């Protein structure tokens, strides 16, 4: 190797390492900041207590967040997968309907969440008279994650080779059977990725939920109770109380919560996948 090539090689290496180094450093410092600050004011009481005064136990918020994530997925996942299957498997590619639908989906996935929040507020909270409630929050974030679910499920389905479908048809399997038994199971990892993205979006959501699910810090009685999620609580505690210690502790719990949900989603996907 000539010396010029060697130098270029070293410079290129340096560039790549610099890139990964800076990205990692930023991420790690955020993580460390939250962990170090959070752990100081974290206590068993603060996370799990059922009798602590309002705002001094995260349990109601953890339960609210969990309810909203699970119900939103229960509503949006079947719709999203169904829509993606239609777009990728049944609709005529490049027909006008598909073009319009795709354009809508792309636009919807780029809309700021406060717009969804405003819609949810005007429609569910006011027009339907649901007031601030978990169900208004659930329906609002369901709409919000639908475009994410459709787009990434569609990508996952598109990545499944035609040869799998051909193999199934050649054995006398119909189209629906082929999709259900071959295509969707093969795409399960991609679908899981969309679920994880959606979980992240819902858990991290503040604006839309502030307007729809409300800010009550008590244990929810049912789906018409108002209830703050962890993120909404973090917003309240930071902006309205200026209590950074509790905010850090909440952030730490929130991160653990997301990690836990992702692991759960992974576990379920592995159970669904037979091999």
């Amino acid at each position: 190797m000539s010396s010029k090539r060697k130098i270029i090689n070293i410079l290129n290496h340096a560039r790549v390492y610099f890139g990964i180094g800076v990205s990692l450093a930023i991420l790690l410092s955020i993580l460390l900041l939250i962990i170090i600050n959070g752990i100081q004011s974290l206590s068993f009481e603060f996370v799990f207590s059922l009798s602590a005064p309002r705002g001094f136990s995260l349990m109601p918020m953890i339960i609210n967040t969990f309810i909203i994530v699970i119900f939103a997925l229960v509503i949006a996942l079947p719709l999203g997968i169904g829509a993606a299957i239609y777009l990728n498997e049944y609709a005529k590619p490049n027909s006008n309907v598909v073009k319009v639908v795709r354009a809508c989906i792309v636009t919807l996935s780029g809309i700021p969440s406060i717009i969804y929040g405003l819609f949810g507020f005007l429609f569910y909270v006011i027009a339907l008279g649901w007031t601030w409630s978990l169900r208004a929050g659930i329906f609002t974030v369901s709409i919000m994650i639908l475009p994410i679910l459709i787009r990434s499920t569609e990508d996952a389905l598109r990545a499944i080779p035609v040869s799998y479908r051909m193999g199934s048809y050649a054995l006398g399997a119909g189209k629906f059977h082929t999709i259900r038994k071959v295509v969707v199971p093969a795409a399960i990892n991609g679908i899981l990725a969309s679920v994880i993205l959606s979980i992240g979006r819902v858990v991290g959501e503040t604006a839309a939920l502030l307007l729809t699910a409300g800010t009550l810090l008590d244990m929810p009685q049912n789906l018409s109770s108002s209830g703050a999620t962890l993120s909404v609580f973090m917003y309240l505690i930071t902006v309205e109380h200026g209590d950074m210690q509790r905010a850090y502790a909440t952030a730490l719990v929130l991160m653990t919560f997301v990690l836990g949900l992702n692991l759960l989603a992974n576990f379920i996907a592995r159970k669904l996948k037979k091999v």
Partner: protein
Amino acid sequence: MTAFEINNVNLFYSDFQALHDVNLKVNKHEITAFIGPSGCGKSTLLRALNRMNDLIDGCRVEGEVLLNGVDIYKEMDVNVLRKRVGMVFQKPNPFPMSVYDNIAYGPRVHGIKSKPQLNEIVERCLRDAAIWDEVKDRLKKSALSLSGGQQQRLCIARSLAVQPDVLLMDEPTSALDPISTAKIEELVIQLKKQYTVVIVTHNMQQATRISDNTGFFLMGEMIEYGKTSDIFSVPSDKRTEDYITGRFG
């Protein structure tokens, strides 16, 4: 005995005519090979026999294809047809499932649920496809972990699992190494005792080694059809002779 009878078949991809007036009979329990240069229509004809062309937009078939005397385009449900006429593809395409589930897929599609019955089918088909000994200890492992040649034999076993009458093979060895190819050829010769085989091949030696009858295709026309020994020793058409002696293609 005739399995397939192909009468005056013309096939179009939108405006392009891919097959011109093809007539031939495929005998039962024999191996029939289709040879010819790329784009001559041999694979198209093969796919017309289990209606895989139905999946291509704008594909139209005229004339008739009879399977045991029944018109497969007018008088037969496509899924019933494909159960009776299996297909092995150019590139091995096992499903991303376990070896066992790959074989059990077809029988399950057609309603077999009983575990002992499925076990019996899986073992029999893997034995028939000469791959049982290699996979019997890894039935629950992913089929994608097998080698290319093993995958192709697995795909053959998968086709056998729905008990077809005819097996269509579209250049089944073109993606494989010589040793795997030899194994598949040996297997195909074994299979003709129970099944009728139609094979498309690029490889003329392969046609002479395994087939009983050969059809030579050129630009969508069937130039010549007859006993393989005759086609390769005393071809009646100049173009066949030119092709098998390697003057083009």
